[in-house]
């Protein structure tokens, strides 16, 4: 029996651990070391340069563009997505009979909204590349059809519109997921609370602020982390959809794209690794900041 136990445990754990150590842990560990070298991919030709790569990052204007763009996305994409998601999810519940059972057809709406979440970001980027096409794209076509032809733009080619256009795609593709997530969270709120709010004469907005929002807070925090991570990435959409890619003139450059280009086009593997480390600390900071206050707060009522 004991013998069989150890044999089973070894068989269950060792293959996965081997795969994990070789393909996941060791690359992560190597990245930190590589970021301190000037390695260009030739075996044995890596020189230790200390913080040199990190110092160069500060003077790399394209990388600074990338940091700025990712920072803008990090603020705008989660805020707008969560805003629309919460609005639609609470509308579904407050608009229905009985306070929160849901408006007629809300199930069908959720099915439709959720679909883009399933598509690969590449498919979404190719699709929206067509939508934004200045001559025969859907967006300009719709504007012209509505008599607003003056608003038609070459969306991805103009420096001031390209980044908003990219963010709109990220928001479009994720709203549905968060409608479903928030809707499930609202379903979990005890019905009595909504009824009490009704008895107290609270209107829709007051009910949302005083009842719904505090009770779905945890879901909103999770959403911030997930959307923040997606906003720090944005690689696939930018790489497939934008001119350059990353253009025009760095207007849609993101950290992941800089990293990819420096590593696999210029062969600056040490420098690219420093960008990876920077991205790692950005992600870590985001997760800690977004999840920390919630944990303290939850500890009090529980």
């Amino acid at each position, binding site marked *: 029996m004991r013998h069989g*136990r150890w*044999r*089973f445990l070894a*068989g*269950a*754990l060792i*293959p*996965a651990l081997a*795969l*994990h150590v*070789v*393909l*996941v*842990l060791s*690359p*992560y560990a190597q*990245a930190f070391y590589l970021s301190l070298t000037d390695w260009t991919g030739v075996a044995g030709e890596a020189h230790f340069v200390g913080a040199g790569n990190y110092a160069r990052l500060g003077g790399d204007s394209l990388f600074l563009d990338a940091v700025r763009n990712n920072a803008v996305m990090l603020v705008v994409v989660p805020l707008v997505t969560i805003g629309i998601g919460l609005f*639609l999810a609470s509308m579904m519940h*407050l*608009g229905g009979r009985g*306070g929160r059972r849901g*408006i007629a*057809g809300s199930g069908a*709406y*959720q099915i*439709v*909204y*959720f*679909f*883009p979440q*399933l*598509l*690969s*970001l*590449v498919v979404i980027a*190719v*699709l929206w590349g*067509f939508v934004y096409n200045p001559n025969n794209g*859907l967006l300009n*076509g719709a504007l012209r059809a509505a008599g607003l032809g003056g608003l038609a733009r070459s969306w991805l080619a103009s420096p001031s519109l390209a980044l908003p256009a990219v963010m709109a795609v990220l928001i*479009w593709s994720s709203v549905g*997921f968060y409608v479903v*997530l928030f809707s499930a969270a609202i379903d979990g709120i005890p019905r009595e609370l909504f*009824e009490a709010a009704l*008895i107290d004469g609270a*209107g829709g907005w007051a009910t949302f602020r005083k009842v719904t929002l505090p009770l779905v807070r945890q*879901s909103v925090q999770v959403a911030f982390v*997930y959307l923040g*991570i997606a906003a720090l990435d944005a690689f*696939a959409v930018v790489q497939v959809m934008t001119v350059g890619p990353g253009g025009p003139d760095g207007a849609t450059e993101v950290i992941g794209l800089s*990293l*990819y280009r420096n*590593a*696999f086009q210029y062969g600056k593997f040490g420098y*690219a*690794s420093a*960008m*990876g480390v920077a*991205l790692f600390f950005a992600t*870590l900071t985001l997760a800690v900041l977004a999840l920390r206050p919630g944990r303290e707060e939850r500890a009090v009522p529980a």
Partner: protein
Amino acid sequence: MTSLRERPVVAAPPEPARDRRRPGSVAGVHLAMLAWAVVTTLPLIWAVISSFKTDDEILNEPWSLPASPRFSNWTRAWTEANIGRYFLNSVLVVGGALLLTMLLGSLVAYALARYSFRGNRLIYYTFVAAMFFPVFLALVPLFFVVRQLGLLGTYQGLILVYAAYAVPFTVFFLHAFFRSLPGEVAEAAFIDGCSHGAVFFRVMLPMARPGLVAVGIFNFLGLWNQYLLPLVLNPDPDRYVLAQGLAALSVSQGYRSDWSGLFAGLTIAMLPVLIAYVAFQRHIRGGMTAGAVK
């Protein structure tokens, strides 16, 4: 939950107040819901319709329906633009990676959740910590590790890497699931003389089915939509996966002018996901949101 929901409504008095609010706001709510539904579906429907049009129709009448549906766009995309090949590559790689991920992930999760031994926690955190690192950080060294192993541009290499990066979340998710299962059935099986492996495969794994389905759906979509890993590790155009092939087509000069072919390729790429969604939409939404919250 159900008992709460079916409890008779106590709040009879506020009924008039509720009704006063209703007619206008309900219309407004429907309008808002409908607006987002249009925003969501219009680009998708437009792409599908465009895949049946001629290039001329696409360029000159972006809004019209095709005069006669051209299925030749689809066959051209499938064969000449290699979408068919990319599709089969995706099926092969994702199928292999999904099987490997589920096998390794459930074994590790079960072993860590149901057996206590020295180092158990350490192994668990070794896996779970990997979820908090961006893949971009590993990208450069990973490329060289895979190249050194002679696996660059091979199906096996891609399958192993996909699985390696999907296992941590699978372990994390299923660990909680295996912990919540009752132990009596397994004990009874042990008394009946089952080996450890048999208890896992014949007793525990079937009991964990809901969890396996949820995490399986989550993994399938994640792997099917992978782009960054194949972009770096799979440079051979003959072995491109679907996302990679579609991206390459959309930026290659030769296909820039073949609008109808690209729309057809795009539609082919969306179709299996749409069919799976229509068939299993409840499962898929449940599985994915559970995956995000856990």
